[in-house]
């Protein structure tokens, strides 16, 4: 397993996580959360756990983002911090 791709994806994951928690608009958080989930799925495929990555792809980058956006639709979109 190639270590450069591992480090690049891990760095992107950490950036996504920090960014998802610091923006003030909740829709941006939803999209970044979907991207974070997809990058996690890539990491697990690199490590060989294909079942886990299939589950995370279908759940995190699919259904979880839809729930998030549906909840934002019914509550407010801006946050103060």
């Amino acid at each position, binding site marked *: *397993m190639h270590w450069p791709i*591992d*480090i690049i994806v*891990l760095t992107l*994951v*950490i950036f996504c*996580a*920090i960014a*998802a*928690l610091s923006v003030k608009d*909740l829709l941006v*958080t939803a999209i970044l*959360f979907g991207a*974070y*989930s997809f990058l*996690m799925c890539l*990491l*697990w495929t690199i*490590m*060989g*756990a*294909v*079942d*886990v990555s299939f*589950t*995370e792809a279908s*759940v*995190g980058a699919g*259904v*979880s983002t839809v*729930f*998030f956006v*549906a*909840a*934002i639709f*019914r*509550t*407010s979109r801006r*946050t*103060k*911090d």
Partner: protein
Amino acid sequence: MSDLLSLIIAKYNYWLYVLLMMIGLYGMIAKNNLIKKVVGMNIFQTAIILFYVSIGYKTGATIPIIKSTDTGHGVIIRAAEYINPLTSCLMLTAIVVSVATFGYAMALAVRIYQRYQTLEEDELRMRLSEE
């Protein structure tokens, strides 16, 4: 010095996973918005799953599905060729539980907004103490 360098090269990934867990924990504790707390919880959960899956990885091994199914009862399956499947299956259940918790937390957030018209924690506390 070379000892420290070889230590870093062998274990750098664990430090990054610990960093990710701490980011999730920070989000859960220090953010005021309720939905951001839930996002922090989910980051924490996926970081722990990542840690467990990385324990079961073996260098040079392949995915845990048998290569050819006409092995019958004659061919021996060598365990060193396949990565450890046990850690992945426990994590399947963890992912399922995490999505169930996330869906339920979103439902709770919608309900709280219906009742109090806000999702920030300090405003919630003020409105609760006024009642």
